[in-house]
């Protein structure tokens, strides 16, 4: 969706100033503090570490030409977590605990007319 572009291009998430937690993607309500939580936009750190990973061999529509590709759950330096593709990294370094950094890439080719979605991916440092 085009409305998600600023969030995805700038890795923009949410910081709850009440409890201190960071969220990605953005949230309207802090699940811990609810209406008491004071939320502000927050740029996410561009580095983190892999908590878990998988190499995907059978892809959904839009990703068929990219298989096999790595997905990982990454914990960022501020403890927020996200799911991302891991690119530009040899298979044997994609592991739990590996340090990763942000890169921007094409995510998928949207439609037969060729609209292309860009967003965040990470690579092992």
């Amino acid at each position, binding site marked *: 969706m085009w409305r998600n572009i600023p969030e995805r291009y700038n890795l923009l998430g949410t910081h709850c100033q009440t409890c201190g937690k960071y969220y990605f993607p953005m949230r309207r309500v802090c699940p811990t503090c609810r209406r008491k939580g004071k939320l502000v936009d927050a740029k996410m750190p561009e580095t983190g570490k892999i908590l878990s990973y998988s190499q995907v061999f059978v892809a959904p529509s839009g990703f*068929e030409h990219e298989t096999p590709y790595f997905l990982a759950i990454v914990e960022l330096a501020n403890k927020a977590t996200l*799911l991302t593709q891991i690119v530009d990294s040899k298979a044997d370094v994609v592991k739990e605990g590996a340090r990763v950094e942000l890169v921007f890439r094409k995510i998928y080719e949207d439609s037969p007319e060729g609209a292309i979605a860009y967003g965040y991916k990470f690579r092992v440092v």
Partner: protein
Amino acid sequence: MRKVSVIGVGQTTFGEHWSLSLRDLVTEAGIKAIENANVEGKDVQALFGGCMASGRFIGQEHIGALMADQMGMNPVPAYRTEAACASGGVALRLAYMAVAGGMYDVVAVGGMEKMTDVSTEDAAVALAGAGDQESELFNGATFPAIYALMARRHMHDFGTTEEQMALCAVKNHGHAVHNPYAQFRKAITVENVMDSGYIASPLKLLDCSPLTDGAAAMVLCASDKAKEYTDKPVEIAASAQASDTLALHERRSLTGLHATEVAAKDAYKQAKIAPKDIDLLECHDCFSIAQIMALEDLGFCKKGTGGKFVEEGNTDFGGVIPTNLSGGLKAVGHPVGASGVREAIDVVRQLRGDAPAPVQVKDAQIGLSHNVGGSGATVVVHAFKKGF
């Protein structure tokens, strides 16, 4: 609150029904359940049907009305529930609440899905709608990939092996050989699973439940009236449900479903039981790792020991907690909206003594059904007690 009993069950065979439509399937299951319950259609006061993605799969919504119409039940009120793969379990719980709360005496519950009319890729996109569109599917995360991320971390933290996961599928296939409704009535070996090729590592094709067409239905009745219809009522001793974040990455843990823990705790409290009192389990093994985590989260073994627990035979027929004696989602098949109802039906069959003889638990008194939506954002747990 009133006590509620199951008085009838019915289902279609599960599999690829290229000649049958969604309406054929749900009507067949519904009529079988009503006949099995020995009720007249006019006694049924409301319908509750679980269906996940009929719009994506066959372009049809308004499933509540479709059920009432096709079964000739108009003008009774009819409801469709959607909670991804827990749509059926949620329908059962809402029907239970409607009877327990005194609104109705007799209601019918259905679960259904018609999945094989679309391509495998389009089915993957429809199913990925059970996760978080904006943070998971957008990045190319299929449903198997989400569970693969849990499996990988479970292996990392606890030493769970791919062979232990494979064993879950092997055992479930072994049970399904006896199930006339199952999609795959064929035994497989650990080697078959290990050689079946990665879908999303470490999960291989035979770790994954298949795409399936099918429907399942049951009839619920206020317990004090159940004996008017059947000699073998099965009481719903507990009905519990919990929610968690839609996206896996925001959960407190990658190696278990918190919603399962919460729902199980609530169910055990309602039924005044502990895991050791339960004679059999139908758990939501959409992927082999899901069965291992369910055994842990439901309290049958300690966190991290599920793989070993399965390996030691505790979940076999005759074991500590016979699990998925039907064959589970892996071998019975997984028509996503139907599975929650089908799991409950297979527990009811065991408690009535109506399970296939080779896998009938002797004198089973209490059974548990466990139904998961998405990667754990919705979990429904029901406990059933023999009522005769």
